[in-house]
């Protein structure tokens, strides 16, 4: 019974591929995977936009969209129709070809990145030996698309927005990649399937053996989340689109369906990077506790992804936009030293795995946690006091 549900989609695909004539099978298998990924994540995008708008509304004490359909459930459909029917405006002085190509170039690598993510047991489109590197290589192509969009629009705001976006993405790519290196170091593989497999098993027979349950893993996870937020240009790091100062950054001159494609690409990038965080730190499709192992693997992946989406919406509703110089300073002065130091902590964790004396486990945990927390606190205090941003006192407010 469990086997049936767990492997439902895998068997379904095999059945469909098997039913096709011999010559088609080679082509059909990847096509079905691609279509499934596209379908699932495009509908997840529609759902996320609705949940985000309603959730942000609730956070701001307003009801959110509730006019289209019952309780506003058809809002994504209305948005879609609106995006489709809007006039597609191309500025006269724009570089027409690049202006057209930019959304495509933006979406394609994001979709490619999904190829290496394991969504469940045996549910991965391509298991590259260097899957993690493939993911980041695909992510690197997005920067070029942002530049194309910004430059081809022939608008100073869009060019400025694109430059900001590129600077931000390059700066935050470093902590993003370095945060994953700890996991790669301990697993000894860049393949995401291997990384998930390394997180099988349980501590003390019930708690899953995820990397996030180690001190360095938790730190790397937090840094990864921050860098991922910045990579996907989400609040509070959505400076490239800063409406207040740049109208909409590289998206100024885009309208209609081209804009919608940028929007989709941004959200799909967010899902992809969340899925990567799940794979690296949260055990991929493994259940959190042994008692819940009876639920299918793809359910766990979906549940974790949903949790990430909710978290990102929560972040967007809570944190105000960061100032541009703080953004760069935060990446280079705070995250980068911490993440490099975190690699050292991961190495200490690795070399202390053989400790066998009494209380070794607790000592290892506390020692590594202290090795992360003390530099975090010291570095943070030092940076804050230098900028005069320490704990603030208000003269007039109570």
């Amino acid at each position, binding site marked *: 019974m469990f086997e049936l549900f767990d492997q439902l989609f895998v068997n379904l695909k095999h059945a469909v591929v098997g039913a096709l004539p011999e010559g088609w099978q080679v082509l059909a298998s990847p096509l079905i995977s691609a279509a499934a990924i596209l379908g699932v994540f495009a509908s997840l995008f529609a759902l996320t936009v609705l949940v985000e708008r309603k959730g942000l509304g609730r956070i701001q004490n307003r009801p959110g969209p509730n006019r289209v359909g019952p309780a506003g459930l058809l809002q994504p459909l209305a948005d879609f129709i609106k995006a489709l029917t809007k006039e597609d405006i191309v500025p006269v002085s724009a570089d027409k070809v*690049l202006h057209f190509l930019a959304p495509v170039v933006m979406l394609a690598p994001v979709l490619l990145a999904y190829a290496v993510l394991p969504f469940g047991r045996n549910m991965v489109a391509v298991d*590259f*030996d260097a899957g993690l590197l493939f993911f980041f*290589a695909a992510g690197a192509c997005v920067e*070029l698309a942002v530049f194309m969009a910004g430059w081809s629009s022939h608008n100073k705001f869009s*060019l400025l927005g694109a*430059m900001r976006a590129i600077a931000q993405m*390059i700066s935050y790519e470093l902590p993003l990649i370095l945060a994953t290196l700890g996991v790669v170091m301990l697993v000894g*593989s860049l393949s995401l399937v291997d990384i998930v497999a390394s997180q099988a098993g349980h501590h003390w027979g019930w708690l899953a053996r995820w990397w996030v349950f180690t001190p360095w893993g938790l730190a790397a996870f937090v840094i990864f989340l921050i860098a991922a937020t910045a990579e996907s240009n989400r609040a509070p790091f959505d400076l490239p689109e800063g409406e207040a100062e740049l109208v909409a950054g590289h998206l100024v001159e885009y309208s209609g369906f081209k804009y919608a494609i940028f929007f989709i690409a941004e959200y799909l990038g967010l899902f992809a990077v969340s899925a990567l965080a799940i794979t690296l730190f949260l055990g991929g499709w493994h259940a959190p506790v042994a008692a819940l192992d009876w639920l299918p693997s793809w359910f766990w992946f979906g549940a974790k992804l949903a949790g990430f989406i909710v978290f990102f919406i929560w972040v967007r509703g809570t944190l105000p936009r960061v100032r541009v110089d703080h953004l760069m300073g935060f990446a280079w002065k705070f995250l980068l030293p911490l993440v490099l130091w975190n690699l050292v902590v991961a190495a200490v964790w690795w070399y202390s795995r053989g400790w066998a004396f009494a209380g070794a486990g607790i000592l290892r945990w506390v020692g590594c946690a202290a090795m992360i927390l003390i530099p975090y606190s010291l570095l943070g205090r030092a940076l804050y006091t230098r900028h005069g941003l320490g704990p603030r006192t208000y003269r007039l407010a109570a």
Partner: protein
Amino acid sequence: MNTALLIFSTITLAGAAAAMTLRNLIHCALAGAVAFLGLAGLFLGLGAEFVAFGQVLVYVGAVAILIVIAVLLTRPARVAGESPRVEPWLPGVGIGVLVTGALVAMVKASLVARSPEAVSSPAAPVKAIGEQLMTTYVLPLEVLGLLLTAALIGAVLLALRDPGEARRP
């Protein structure tokens, strides 16, 4: 000659040719990125996954962006009436064609032409690459780290504004 090789080599060569002939510098840089992507495809076809993805990460993610930003920093993308080529450009093309022709002729004439097809399709597992980097190639790796740090500092120092230089309006 399989299809993948044909497609990727066409992309590479067309991208490179476009990058070297187009008038608009930004177009050139983007065509260059396309050529780098095609090369990554060729590497992938040859079984060198790690190099292919590294190529995309470094060339498309970093070098192409650097070139594009350098273009934006140095001059307007299009200057009317200015030739994109050096003035007597024919000798340059002649030398290029001659060298290419010689290379192709040599490849055609060499023993390689008669070498048998490779029977095994070797892969470069990431683990093996990592182990070799840490054992056989540890000295080059360290030197490379030093070189990259030096390049980083050097690039920052070169591009820094001179302290005496007045701020441009």
